[in-house]
């Protein structure tokens, strides 16, 4: 009997163990149910209404619906392929062409390079591309695909797609390139494909591992070993060689200086964005065997290609970016000449990336006195951005201009990487500048003088540009308007930096047939050429604002920034005799003289008042290291390139007056000298909570204006405790209901995106929508994350394409029931080594801001709230969790912030009052202050100056230890993936466990006697509700809307496990007790 009782006791323990495991599993699964749902492709909670939803607020485009209003998945997917193809065809940039391109249909072509066979197609815009894709080989040689062998995962999608379906116009124009490809090289690359990751990482690292760059290009010896006829096969396919080289991009990693393999370093290659020995070997092989060698660049971070540019054996170079699932069709269209290239570079391609002054300070830097910082997990890292406004082309072109004019020690040795003779020379340092791109045809431009509209606080210039196609083939061309502002003695005295050239507006022609012309009228907001002067004394006593200098302003069109600058120089009477690399065209530049009519030597009035009618003044002076005590640093100035060129700051000591900010004290002043503490004795009688005087419901607020009179009453009806917790929680799940206004808790309100919505087509959170794709649909598992990288969007210089992307993603969101998207990426490219370059548009804020604005407005019209990220200064992925970037406020406002300002103010759409309803903040800081906790950033600039009202979420769980500061600054809540409060009672536990700053204990009544915080909480709540009121969530809302749980398979699983193990545990225990008694009886 002892053995029996031992058996039963043992079994009891096992089943208790399993029961406990099941309960743990259920708890963890429920806590992370949104992620679990996404993983399994199900929805565990749905919003339902007894009387049925109207679905009248937002609807998909008619082309995606059948006659009965149901969804047409095939139409949607074909439209995605169409758009992805056109996006790439307009965004790819032809950098060099000696006449080799386009190749004739029927050309016998040899594909070389690992990336010709394993092209990096995704851009990891928060999420990676998913689903089936079209390869370069298919695009070049086939006419249709069944997607049978091109799956990024196991998901099924469209069964068949004819390349001729494309709507370029004209029968059959969309068919494939019609090349005949060398099968031997394809077979060789397939044989070694195991070593060529489809989605290579930019770098590894983390967990103490060294940084390392994965390139994945095989050696020629490996290829010939795989296919002995590798080289000899060239003879039969020798019309051209197309060599593809690539570099990956992705979240959480940067390229790092000097991180190639030791073997590659031994070959003299040191940097990860240089061509490796294996890549050079294959390019050289092509040069030896082919009269036409075409190099395709499959990257976002600029590969160093200066020597390819100057190599006469390289016939053509084309940047194709990470083209998305269908973009290689667009590449084929370009290579075969069905479409003429019309893209312009999104970033500069320098001869050496290290020649950018920003590269002096990128990487891992720890404060020397990190032990004095209590917030060690988030506040011990920094990066000094001493390059001031001279980011990307602003540096190279301004230094070039000063070289020509012989000023500012521009020709000194500082920053020289490739210049011969030890003096800085533009032609040696630059391969291809920003905005540059070739076509298969030639265009002639005629620029008229700008028509200036000036009012008290705005100046707009309207440029009329006539474009004529002087070549022999049809094509489009971007029209880029650049400006030069005067660099005056005032600027030098007040440390105001000026770029010698900057993009201020752009547009793109339609397809122009040979001989045809088009006149474009382009309106530029001169706010985008105003300079921020931190020293300017405003009339209201505040300091710092945007200024315009008196003097000569120049405007020019050109093929990129450099060409435009040369045109300006030409108008200024400069020629190659003065040191220009080529003579510009004076007729393509115009001069405009500005004299401030008011008092003062500069105009600090016109743009001193923002479009939201607020005095602009310094808001984030703590972003400048020199505004603290202790050691001072030098920012790059064109007044002396040599004396101010950045040095690397490897071990800065955080000054004593910076430490409290690093430790998370709630900063309440622009200079970081004043702090906020919770009030405990305010008169709060003027703030109403929980009112029953009115009975507005949230569903009634669909598309309500910000100033709608009903908001105040509706907010009065909400309870303070609910509002306090709601202000912590901004998705993806909104688990705190607002009972007073009928706002229900619901799941999956938000997710990442940018190049498409990440969910499978049938994985809708809005199952009752008439257009919902059923599981039985053959395309049910198609995933919408399919478009090319953000730089491709930027390089199109086509606002219509930008708008189309937003519109399509908005349609996708309707199909999957997603109201808010965390995207697009809107940070500017500080340098080429940022591993996330594929997610952000460009180094130029005007181009980036326009991309984001078009995306947001288009998506918004479909009820998808765009939330550009990462606001702001996510200038490197290294140490992004709290890295403190230091720069001047001028730099912050004119580079990173200007992109957001353009998108937020939405000047282009001011008549329709459309712009941004959302925002996601950065993990990084603003100087020593977390962006999430920076009142100057989140309220002073974002809300007050720009008039942004919407939802503003932190990145994943960022700064959960700084709840009060986060709310005080002006965020509307945390991105709480996985760790959100599930109830009011859960709030302090989930959010407050570390919130010890100022000794604040979190509770739902913590602001009971703080009128300031109650006011902020109330506004925060309104901002979130206002954003939702303008989203497709309103399709599901009615008077009886409530949430019902769904018994998903994973819920069935854990419920069954709990039940079975509980029964077995109980039975075993009973048997054990019985057997024990029998033993005792015996």
């Amino acid at each position, binding site marked *: 009997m*002892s*053995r029996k*009782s*031992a*058996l039963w*006791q*043992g079994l*009891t*323990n*096992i089943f*208790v*163990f399993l029961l*406990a*495991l099941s*309960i*743990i599993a259920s*708890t*963890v699964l429920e*806590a*992370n149910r949104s*992620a679990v749902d996404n993983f399994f492709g199900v929805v565990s909670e749905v919003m339902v209404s007894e009387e049925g939803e109207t679905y009248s607020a937002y609807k998909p485009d008619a082309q995606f619906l059948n006659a009965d209003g149901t969804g047409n998945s095939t139409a949607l997917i074909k439209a995605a392929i169409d758009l992805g193809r056109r996006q790439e065809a307009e965004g790819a940039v032809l950098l060099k062409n000696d006449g080799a391109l386009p190749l004739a249909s029927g050309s016998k072509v040899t594909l070389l390079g690992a990336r010709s066979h394993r092209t990096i197609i995704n851009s990891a815009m928060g999420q990676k591309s998913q689903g089936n894709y079209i390869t370069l080989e298919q695009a070049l040689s086939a006419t249709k695909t069944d997607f049978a062998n091109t799956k990024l995962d196991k998901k099924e999608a469209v069964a068949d797609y004819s390349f001729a379906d494309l709507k370029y116009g004209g029968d059959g124009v969309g068919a494939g390139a019609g090349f005949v490809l060398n099968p031997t090289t394809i077979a060789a690359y397939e044989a070694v494909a195991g070593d060529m990751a489809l989605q290579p990482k930019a770098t590894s*690292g*983390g*967990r*103490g591992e060294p940084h390392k760059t994965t390139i994945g290009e095989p050696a020629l010896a490996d290829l010939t070993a795989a296919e002995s006829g590798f080289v000899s096969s060239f003879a039969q396919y020798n019309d051209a060689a197309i060599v593809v080289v690539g570099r990956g991009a992705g*979240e*959480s990693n940067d390229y790092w200086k000097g991180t190639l393999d030791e073997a590659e370093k031994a070959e003299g290659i040191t940097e990860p964005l240089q061509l490796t020995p294996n890549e050079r070997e294959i390019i050289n092989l092509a040069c030896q065997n082919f009269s036409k060698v075409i190099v395709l660049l499959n990257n976002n971070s600029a590969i160093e290609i200066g020597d390819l540019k100057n190599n006469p054996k390289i016939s053509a170079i084309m940047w194709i970016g990470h083209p998305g699932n269908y973009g290689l069709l667009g590449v084929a269209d370009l290579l075969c000449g069905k479409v003429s290239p019309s893209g312009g570079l999104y970033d500069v391609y320098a001869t050496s990336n290290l020649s950018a002054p920003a590269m002096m300070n990128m990487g891992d830097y720890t404060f020397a006195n990190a032990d004095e910082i*209590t*917030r*060690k*997990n*988030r506040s011990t890292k920094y990066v000094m951005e001493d390059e001031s406004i001279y980011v990307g082309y602003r540096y190279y072109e301004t230094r070039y201009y000063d070289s020509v004019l012989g000023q500012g020690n521009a020709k000194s040795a500082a920053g020289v990487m490739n210049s011969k003779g030890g003096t800085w020379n533009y032609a040696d340092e630059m391969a291809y500048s920003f905005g540059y791109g070739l076509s298969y045809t030639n265009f002639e431009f005629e620029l008229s003088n700008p028509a200036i509209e000036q009012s008290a606080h705005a100046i707009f210039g309207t440029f009329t540009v006539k474009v004529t196609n002087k070549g022999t083939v049809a094509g489009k061309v971007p029209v880029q308007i650049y400006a030069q502002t005067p660099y005056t003695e005032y600027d030098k005295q007040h440390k105001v930096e000026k770029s010698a050239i900057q993009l201020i507006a752009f547009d793109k022609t339609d397809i122009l047939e040979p001989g045809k012309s088009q006149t474009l009228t382009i309106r530029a907001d001169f706010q985008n050429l105003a300079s921020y002067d931190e020293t300017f004394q405003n009339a209201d006593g505040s300091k710092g604002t945007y200024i315009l200098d008196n003097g000569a302003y120049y405007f020019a069109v050109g093929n990129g920034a450099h060409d435009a600058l040369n045109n300006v120089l030409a108008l200024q009477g400069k020629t190659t005799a003065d040191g220009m690399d080529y003579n510009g065209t004076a007729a393509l530049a115009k001069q405009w003289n500005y004299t401030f009519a008011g008092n003062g030597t500069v105009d600090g009035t016109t743009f001193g008042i923002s479009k939201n009618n607020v005095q602009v003044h310094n808001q984030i002076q703590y972003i400048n290291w020199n505004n603290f005590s202790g050691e001072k640093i030098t920012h790059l100035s064109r007044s002396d390139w040599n004396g101010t060129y950045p040095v690397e700051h490897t071990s800065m000591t955080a000054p004593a007056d910076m430490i409290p900010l690093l430790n998370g004290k709630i900063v309440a002043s622009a200079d970081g000298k004043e702090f906020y503490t919770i009030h405990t004795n305010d008169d709060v009688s003027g703030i109403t909570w929980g009112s029953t005087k009115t009975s507005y419901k949230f569903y009634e607020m669909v598309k309500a204006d910000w100033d709608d009179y009903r908001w105040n009453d509706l907010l009065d009806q909400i309870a303070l405790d609910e509002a306090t917790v709601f202000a912590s929680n901004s998705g993806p799940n909104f688990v705190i209901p607002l009972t007073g206004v009928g706002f229900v808790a619901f799941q999956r309100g938000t997710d990442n995106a940018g190049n498409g919505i990440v969910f499978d087509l049938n994985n809708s959170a809005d199952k009752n929508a008439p257009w919902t794709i059923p599981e039985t649909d053959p395309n049910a598992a198609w995933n919408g994350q399919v478009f090319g990288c953000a730089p491709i969007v930027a390089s199109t210089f086509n606002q219509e394409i930008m708008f189309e992307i937003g519109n399509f993603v908005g349609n996708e969101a309707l199909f999957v029931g997603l109201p808010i998207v965390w995207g697009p990426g809107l940070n500017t490219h500080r340098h080429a080594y940022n591993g996330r370059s594929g997610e952000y548009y460009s180094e130029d804020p005007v181009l980036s801001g326009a991309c984001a604005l078009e995306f947001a407005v288009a998506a918004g019209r479909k009820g998808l709230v765009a939330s550009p990220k990462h606001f702001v200064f996510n200038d490197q992925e*290294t*140490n992004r*969790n709290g890295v403190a970037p230091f720069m001047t406020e001028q730099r912050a406002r004119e580079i990173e912030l200007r992109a957001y300002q353009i998108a937020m103010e939405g000047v282009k759409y001011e008549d329709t009052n459309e712009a941004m309803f959302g925002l996601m903040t950065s993990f990084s800081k603003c100087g020593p202050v977390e962006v999430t906790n920076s009142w100057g950033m989140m309220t002073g600039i974002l809300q007050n100056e720009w008039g942004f009202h919407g939802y503003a979420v932190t990145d*994943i*769980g960022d700064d959960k*230890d700084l709840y009060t500061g986060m709310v005080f600054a002006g965020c509307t809540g945390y991105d709480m*993936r*996985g*760790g959100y409060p599930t109830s009011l009672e859960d709030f302090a*536990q*989930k959010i407050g*466990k*570390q919130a010890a700053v100022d000794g604040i204990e979190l509770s739902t009544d913590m602001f009971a006697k703080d009128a300031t915080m109650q006011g902020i909480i109330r506004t925060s709540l309104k901002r979130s509700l206002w954003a939702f009121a303008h989203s497709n969530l309103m399709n599901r809302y009615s008077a009886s809307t409530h949430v019902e749980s769904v018994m998903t398979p994973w819920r069935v699983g854990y419920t069954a496990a709990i039940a079975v193990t509980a029964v077995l545990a109980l039975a075993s*225990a009973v048997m*054990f*007790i019985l057997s*024990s008694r029998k*033993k005792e009886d015996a």
Partner: protein
Amino acid sequence: MKKFSFNFLTIACAGVLALVGWVLLLVTNGVAGFAVDNGGLAIGLGLVAAALCCAGAFAAEKFGAQNVITAAVKVCALALIMVVIGVLIADRANLASGLFTWDSHNSVGWTAFSTAVASIVFFLLAVVALIVSAFQTGKKA
């Protein structure tokens, strides 16, 4: 010297393992910025569980391995350990999801995560020892 039964030694072993797990729980809970949700509760329950293991060992010696009191003490210890494990998993799951995806460079996070895993491993070993002890009849070592 008194000889202890295998059962005593197994349960005592469970107690020692639980105690090691508990110490590691203190460590992971103390990582700056990564205090465990319900950490205080887990620490308390972990200590009680370790104590129950010790009590179970002596109960086994006094009342026998298959005595209901001994079995009840052990199953209570097991249950408490599982609660502690559950608290740790629930708290660190979110951290882990970040570390293995977007937050791989978070060295402090990795410390919090790895010490939590170590703690869970020791607690699980304690559970295994308790289960093994439940199958034992109580022979002397």
